[in-house]
């Protein structure tokens, strides 16, 4: 009955075209209702003036975008160090045998501790604490130490992602490498880690997205990046629209990363299915 009625309404359409039409219609209806509810609320005129001021937006947007360049620089520098440092921690943690117990313990303590500490606290502690020590030859820039704090925190997360990848490589792969006479380190280097890294690319990108957003925390100890610039503009105009501008810029940067992550996930799922391995 239900099916009959639908096919009469959308008669003659292919099932693909019909799905697209339905998706489009339901999206339009959903957002129309949402906009209606918000704009008909009693406080809407005030909110609109405070957050969505066209003039303030066009003034603030270029400045915030320029400041966002610093977020990108922090992100890129931190990411390179995180990828390398986290791999070292993950490898230390997967070393077998009693001899390596101290290194394993160190890696476990590291990941436990720095996943537990709030990012903002470490940024404050390092950003204000280390320059205050007055050590010669140590950088005193708050920006540098805030970036170091991000590297330390995110390395703990990414190390766990790597470790999951290393543990997902079947032990028979290591056995095959060792049986050829490769040392434990060579087996890790040429056989285990390359397969592990391929498997964890999607979850790694997920952590990239988190890092990209957290570069805004650096603002809290001084450096003028996108969020801080928006704050400055806001206090100058007594209008919150610059925050909206900053939010849009962050979102515009993370959406491609999110789509890429989904695409890679889907691709690896298809490959596993094709290889006959349970997903």
């Amino acid at each position, binding site marked *: 009955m239900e099916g009959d009625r639908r096919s009469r309404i959308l008669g003659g359409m292919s099932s693909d075209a019909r799905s697209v039409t339905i998706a489009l219609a339901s999206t339009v209806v959903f957002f129309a209702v949402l906009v209606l509810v918000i704009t008909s609320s009693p406080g809407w005129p005030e909110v609109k003036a405070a957050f969505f001021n066209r003039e303030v937006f066009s003034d603030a947007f270029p400045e915030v975008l320029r400041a966002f360049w610093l977020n990108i620089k922090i992100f890129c520098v931190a990411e390179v160090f995180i990828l390398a440092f986290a791999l070292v921690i993950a490898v230390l943690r997967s070393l077998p045998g009693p001899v390596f117990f101290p290194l394993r313990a160190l890696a476990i303590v590291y990941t436990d501790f720095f996943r537990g500490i709030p990012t903002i606290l470490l940024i404050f502690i390092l950003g204000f604490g280390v320059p205050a020590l007055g050590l010669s030859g140590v950088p005193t820039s708050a920006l540098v130490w805030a970036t170091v704090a991000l590297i330390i925190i995110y390395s703990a997360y990414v190390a766990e992602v790597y470790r999951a990848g290393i543990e997902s490589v079947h032990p*028979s*792969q290591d*056995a*095959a*490498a*060792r*049986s*050829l*006479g*490769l*040392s434990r380190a*060579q087996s890790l280097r*040429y*056989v285990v880690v*390359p*397969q592990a890294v*391929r498997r964890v690319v999607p979850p790694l990108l997920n952590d990239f997205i988190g890092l990209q957003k957290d570069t805004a925390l650096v603002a809290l100890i001084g450096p003028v990046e996108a969020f801080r610039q928006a704050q400055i503009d806001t206090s100058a105009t007594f209008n919150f629209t610059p925050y909206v501008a900053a939010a849009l810029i962050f979102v515009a940067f993370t959406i491609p990363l999110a789509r890429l992550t989904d695409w890679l996930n889907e691709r690896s799922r298809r490959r596993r299915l094709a*290889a006959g391995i349970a997903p």
Partner: protein
Amino acid sequence: MSSAPALVLEHVHKSFDKREVLKGIDLSVAEHEVVCLIGASGSGKSTLLRCVNLIEPIDGGRIFVGGREVTKRGLDVNEVRRGIGIVFQSFNLFPHMTVLENVTLGPRKARRLDRAEADAQGVELLRRFGLEDRRSDYPDRLSGGQQQRVAIVRALAMQPQLMLLDEVTSALDPELVAEVLSVIRELAEGGMTMLIATHEMSFAADIASRVCFLDQGVLLEEGRPEEIFRSPSNPRTQEFLRRIIAAGRL
């Protein structure tokens, strides 16, 4: 040519937790000899091979390869393994490497050959076993039989004095078994010393210089294939072979 046997096992014991899998195995394999291990699943055949390759540490006894004790403490296990090739039931090729890279990894990293030399030697071996046109393919593009032949070539590339084959045809579709067995036969004819765990009884009867029957971690009976398969003396061997024949496998 050395006079010492290629492989000697003396009272080898191995347990996993409380379960004793090898209960004092004594076995000697002469150079150029092909010894087949037969027995039910779980009788200890695979464990025995993995112990010889030092993948599994043994709990008691000694193992000699080419007259040298390899179970001594402090010995360089990597150096020992370079001289012993092992092929697994499940191939265990490296999925992120091409066929040629699979074959040359050992020579390049463990024997420190440069790439050109390792490649030349690898291509030559692949050609010998009819796999040269597959050199740039990844393992998942190959049939099971081809994958297992590549695994054999990978082990051979290390120029081992001894090859261990662990039920290398058990994971293959029936129509792919023959191509792998013919490779093994070629190796035997070339004089390769081999210790083979197998369920292929007629192949064992055909190729083995000696057949050993393993039952619950004990080497119950050994002898020339015609003795073991025609007139086994131990009642458990008789029972095992009766079941094999009933299943149409001999």
